[in-house]
């Protein structure tokens, strides 16, 4: 410790320490609440995001298999008509979710056209 610090140090009384501990409790609690609410917000955000992605992923995968089935049964059928989704919608959705890679999607689109 620096000599200078020793010069400036002075012992506090236990009573005064106790008073400070009581005084900071409210601020500590506030910090805890703020940190807790921030954590909860992130948690909610992630759960919504996860739920949203999960749902979207199911729709996209289902679309993909319906498309494949329809194509094998009737190649001329408009694959996405039943789902009221355009092929572009599915392409964007699937690529966003990394369900189908670019190459697969190109093949899919070529087959469709």
């Amino acid at each position: 410790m620096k000599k200078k610090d020793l010069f400036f140090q002075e012992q506090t009384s236990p009573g005064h320490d106790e008073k400070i501990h009581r005084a900071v409790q409210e601020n500590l609690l506030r910090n805890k609440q703020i940190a807790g609410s921030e954590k909860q917000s992130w948690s909610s955000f992630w759960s919504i995001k996860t739920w949203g992605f999960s749902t979207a992923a199911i729709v996209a995968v289902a679309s993909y298999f319906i498309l494949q089935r329809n194509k094998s049964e009737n190649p001329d059928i408009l694959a996405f008509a039943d789902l009221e989704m355009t092929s572009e919608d599915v392409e964007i959705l699937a690529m966003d979710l990394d369900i189908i890679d670019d190459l697969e999607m190109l093949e899919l689109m070529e087959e469709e056209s």
Partner: protein
Amino acid sequence: MDDEALIKKIAKGDSQAFESLFQKYKALVYGFSRRLLVSESLAEDNAQETWMKIVQYAPQYQEQGSLKSWIMTVTKNTALNTLRKRGWEEELSEDSSEQIEDSSLDLVSMMENQETMEKLKRSLDELPERQRLAVVLWMQEEKSYEEIAEDLQVNLNAVKVLLFRAKQGLLKMMKEDL
């Protein structure tokens, strides 16, 4: 655990982290408050307000220099605010004819032993308010004259006068005390 980790935990409301930081710096915060404000009760109030601010502003704390410097700055600003609110006690004289030279008083060498240190503390407490503040800021924070002028809201020449008078005063008191 280092200071940065402690303040991050305090920002999240961790009481144990506060306890660790408090134990580490409580004597310095209180002692610095005492040197700035002299009065025990004012220094205790200042220390309490300082610790409350440290906890309150912990979430906004950004690493710039050491945490210890930040704590000392909070302590100093809190004390100076108290003094400003109350109004400075001492009328400033900026007599430019006064010879302003660094006195031969070597404060650092006076910290060599406990007894001299205590005498220096007592002598500091006896100085007029602004002289005391100028010396304490100069000693504790190793501030430039310009920075001290800003803290005390006076011009540069006034700081030189204050420090010159303070050192002369301390020298006189220390000699009488020895």
